[in-house]
């Protein structure tokens, strides 16, 4: 399953947001890939996510494959669209 998002929170996928995303991703057994520009990284790796350097306004593509892909994509998508709880 693939879905596309725009990073809307002010700080982008900075340390705090990346940590939230990685923690959420690690709750699933599915394989999770995150793509921004021409870089694609493991969605369960915080260093991978940080090296995407996704600032506000960046377009990212989530690809999730596995038994719990639906739930995973749902949760991750909500996190991104909910701006990671930033004001």
């Amino acid at each position, binding site marked *: 399953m693939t879905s596309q998002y725009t990073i809307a929170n002010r700080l982008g996928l900075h340390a*705090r947001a990346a940590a939230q995303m990685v923690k959420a991703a690690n709750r699933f057994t599915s394989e999770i890939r995150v793509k921004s520009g021409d870089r694609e990284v493991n969605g369960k790796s*915080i*260093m991978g996510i940080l090296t995407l350097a996704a*600032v506000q*306004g960046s377009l990212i593509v989530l690809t999730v494959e596995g038994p719990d892909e639906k739930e995973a994509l749902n949760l991750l998508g909500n996190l991104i669209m909910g701006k990671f709880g930033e004001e």
Partner: protein
Amino acid sequence: MAGEETKTPLVQLKGMGVSEGVALGPIYLLERERVAAPHSRILPEEAEAELARFKKALTATQRQLELIKKRIQTEESRDLQYIIDAQVLILKDVLLLQGTEDGIRQGLNAEWALELVRDRIKTVFEHLGDEYFRERRSDVDYAVERLLRSLLKRRVESIEDVKGNMIVAARDLSPADTAQMVHSRVIGFITDMGSKSSHTAIMARSLEIPAVVGLKNVSQLVKTGDVVAIDGFTGEVVINPDAATRQRFAELKKSFRSYQTQLPRYRRLPAVTRDGSPVRLLANIELLEELGAVKRYGAEGVGLYRTEFLFMNRKDLPTEEEHYQNYRKVAEAVFPRPAVIRTLDIGGDKFVSQLELAPELNPAMGLRAIRFCLKEPKIFKTQLKGILRAGELGNLKIMLPMISGVEEVRAAREIIEEVQAELKKDRARFASGIPIGIMVETPSAVAAADLLAREVDFFSIGTNDLIQYSLAIDRANAAVSYLYEPLHPGVLRMIRSVADAGRAQQIRVAICGEMAGDPFYTAVLLGLGLEELSMSPYSIPRIKRMIRMIDQVEARNLADRLLGVPTGSEIASLLTKKMEEWFPDFRSDQVFYKTSLDDELTKGVKDAEHDTHLGISSRRTSG
């Protein structure tokens, strides 16, 4: 330790004071240099044991960090908790674990394998274009360093090891170090690296511990036990102070303490000269976090809110709503006092990624500030809409930067009128008669100040840029930096003529450059005819103190006299002489801590009663 006379020579350093206060005490040198990890080959049959050793060290390190995180579960340190969280996640990262495991299986010992992986990951970070993300390589470093120490069974020294009241010296402090400050008995910080916005600085300010950063090599000059004296306001650091210096800092510390206890009362005193002329003291800020200091230090409003921060570190542009929310917070925090919002003051060079503009050879004189905004009216309008809507409370003002003549003011006004018409059409609530002022920072604006004064509601003199532009100094060229003279006759004459032009049209004239926050210049500025000074909030008490000692008539006479002196250095020495004569204990940057405020405060009770007559309402809300 502290009592003995040290044989090592006294060393004087000057860094950046990022958290005010004074400390005198022994150093605790926090060594954060890389541990030297042995690199060796292992046999295939040893791989499992090596892996087990690695995993054991990993668990121990993760536990250490979790423990640190638990100890800082307070509201204020939430940001730090997230950072430590990220470090824990780095230690659980499959990139790091898998990479190290692969190395071990290929016959490297754990330390070697780990270092190889770290270096590979760091290279990726080093090539990132965005500064924030590039800097995350230091998080990787901190986490891996901890792990390496655990592998080598070396303890990680921590701030919690600090016994007694000591001043911590380090090359740099990691977020984990900073987090432990909360529970330590550290009385001061000095570091080689750092800036006003680094974690150490922010944390030191919130804990009210003096800190000086950017000292370049202080961690190599000191060892644990050396005595050091630091002033977190001026950035002065003295290693191995002699008896006289110790005495000076001990006194400074005492005065600083009484200064702090008196601050809440002192901020209610009006800024009036000895002979009764009121002066308005305002704060220059750029972050919303500084709004607390605006109140705490007794500013009568915000004289300069720099809005560039809203545009930094992002790919897209801020929306009208983001502008609105941001300015609204400023307006509400200072209400009913005024806040001056300066429109975007950066150049096209900062927008290369968003607008694909060509890089400029001399951006200081290029397409920046108002020029850029007039060229890109869409960006300008979005910001203006935000300001006008946030101005609904009636206390915001708009300030246009880098104005060189009347045409730019008229063009900007036209756009503001268009924006108001659009807002009206959308039935939005906004400030209709918002005051519009300009920064006076180009020589042409000074020369045409009388014409400009008829077109705007206020002036604010930006001395930093004005000095640079009028003396034609290239900031990047060290060979001409000696020309940067705030007391140059040309500069003083310009300030006087702008003040006169403002008075003739009955508009307010403020000054918001660095000169405004230095008590050495206060008498001159008042003498030149300025009645509004805008500065870093932390400088306000000392400037107020100065103002309350100055006689406006004498200051006027002094300024008149200085205007007839032909060179900047002669003006400076005459001014120094005069200041020492008027205020015998005068030392330009320390006058405040040195003087007790007690008599001032007793006198102040009477002054406060006159507040209303002077047009300055006393502050009843304490923040």
